[in-house]
């Protein structure tokens, strides 16, 4: 029993790390541009499929490096030509646009790569269990957790210490002043969008190794990411991270005791948070 609980907690942590990686990208984009990127899951799927396609040429490690960068490049183009015209309009329109993009991405991946699930080969170094007692602790799972931790660490480093990061944070608080101070806000929003999509692409490559590849992989991960943002608190990136891990572990633990409520539990958490603390766990008072 202990082992089962341990197994599901760890599983939940991994799933939560996914949610967090997705949700951090969503949060970045929403905080600076006020856009709910519904196509985020679609970008995730593209990241995974690109890695799959690149694998024969550059191997697993090359795919891990290249696929998220290519996905981010697609993100930059999408932002430039489709989303930029919508800034300053009712958020309804950007939401509808990304909604449409989500459809196109999902159907597009199905068209190009087929509807059936594709296996994603991971190096044998990573696929064997680390010890026989903790059979669930394969190298890949551990590797994923470490990689997510590194990515999140790098993101927070960028935001805290680089010029781009400082501008993003400042723009989140007061975009107009940042613009008046001579920062090109268009480029800032563009790069910020690309950064968010990079995280989605990275999550996509990791998800491919863990869950296999299906066209619907994105739409199944996006809803929990919304919940993670709401639980953690809109406007707070540490909150988003915490929210993602929390709902991941919570649904992992629910799998042990009451498997059919695995999805329901995160919505119950969301309801409770909204009831007790509407701004979310680490959200700032009065921002929304």
């Amino acid at each position, binding site marked *: 029993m202990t082992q089962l609980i341990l197994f599901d907690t760890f599983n939940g942590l991994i799933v939560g790390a996914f949610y967090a990686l997705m949700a951090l990208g969503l949060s970045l984009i*929403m905080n600076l541009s*006020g856009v*709910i990127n519904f196509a985020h899951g679609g970008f995730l799927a593209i990241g995974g499929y690109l890695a799959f396609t690149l694998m024969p040429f550059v191997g697993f490690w090359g795919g891990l490096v290249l696929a998220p960068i290519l996905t981010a490049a697609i993100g930059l183009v999408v932002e430039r030509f*489709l989303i930029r*015209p*919508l800034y300053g*309009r*009712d*958020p*309804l*329109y*950007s*939401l*509808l*646009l990304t*909604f*449409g*993009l*989500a*459809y*196109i*991405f*999902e*159907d*597009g991946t199905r*068209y190009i790569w087929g509807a059936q699930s594709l296996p994603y080969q991971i190096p044998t170094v990573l696929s064997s269990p680390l010890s026989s007692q903790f059979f669930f602790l394969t190298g890949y799972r551990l590797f994923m957790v470490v990689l997510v931790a590194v990515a999140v660490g790098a993101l927070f480093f960028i935001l805290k210490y680089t010029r781009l990061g400082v501008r993003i944070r400042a723009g989140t608080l007061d975009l107009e002043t940042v613009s008046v101070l001579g920062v090109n806000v268009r480029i800032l929003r563009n790069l910020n969008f690309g950064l968010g999509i990079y995280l989605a692409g990275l999550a996509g490559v990791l998800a491919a190794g863990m869950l296999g590849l299906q066209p619907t992989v994105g739409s199944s991960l996006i*809803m929990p990411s*919304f*919940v993670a*943002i*709401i639980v953690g608190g*809109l406007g707070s990136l540490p909150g988003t991270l915490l929210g993602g891990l929390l709902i991941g572990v919570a649904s992992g633990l629910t799998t042990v005791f009451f498997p*059919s*409520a695995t*999805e*329901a539990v995160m*919505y119950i958490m*969301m*309801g409770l948070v*909204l*009831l007790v603390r*509407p701004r979310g766990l680490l959200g700032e008072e009065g921002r*929304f």
Partner: protein
Amino acid sequence: METLNRQTANIIVWLLLLAMPFWIKALGGYTELCTQVLVYALAAMALNFLLGFTGVLSFGHAAYFGLGAYGVAMTIKYLVASTPLALLVGIVVGTIAAAIIGWLIVNLRGVYFAMVTIAFGQVFYFITFRWNNVTGGDDGLTGWSRVPIDLGFTRIDILHNPTAFYYVVLAIFAVAVGIMAFLLRSPFGRTLLAIRENERRARFLGIPVERHIWLSFLISCLFVSLAGGLYALLNNFVDPRALRWDMSGNFVIIAVLGGMRSFWGPMIGAAIFVVLQDYVSSMTENWMSFLGLFFVLIVLFFPRGVLGILRRKSLS
């Protein structure tokens, strides 16, 4: 002059709707298609009560649509074989859920409100999806059908006569739309418009903004669950897709396409949407890509909708 125009427009709309089963066949359609237009129109107009006239962005209305649909289907299948009672149960279920969720989210605004409604929309999807033995899970709820309505002096066979069913739906639609129009003209409706235009000013005038938004959400969800109930009756079937997020998106795009600042806008949007869906799905398997492209194009080039553009033309 303006009121005269509006009256003429109303008369034309109702005449077209009354005669629809006759002229649609000339255009290559069929009666069920007309009923579908009415159902989608009712759902989108109900959503627009909130979206266009209160200025609150809900992206989770499929949840209440689906609850209405499941309420109707499960009542007929498990409880009592009566169409009016089933519709009543569907409405009550949807509205109660909306009352609770609305109460939780009414303090949120803008993007945050939209995101929470999206997330909450999925709760009921997972419940119906997981609760196999009662809801039929992914396969949907079958083994039931709409029941002829017994009025005492006569019997309307809505099961075997699609035209009769169309007129029953039209009658319900007329009552629902009439109530919404009446509400929008009342002081309550004017207050909603005031909130949409300037929430802060409305608040300073002493209007309890949260209570008004909550009521508007409730009314909107009430009529959406009615539409959901009719949708279940129309198909004699319901599955979890009726309450998934893409259905919510469809309602919003219908409202935007027709013009969300006008009362009849969503109706026009619904007609275009349903006919396109029927036509394109029969032509290609990639309906999803087409729909996505449709979303993108409307947002980029057509954000005011059909009636918005017509109105602007007539002004200039």
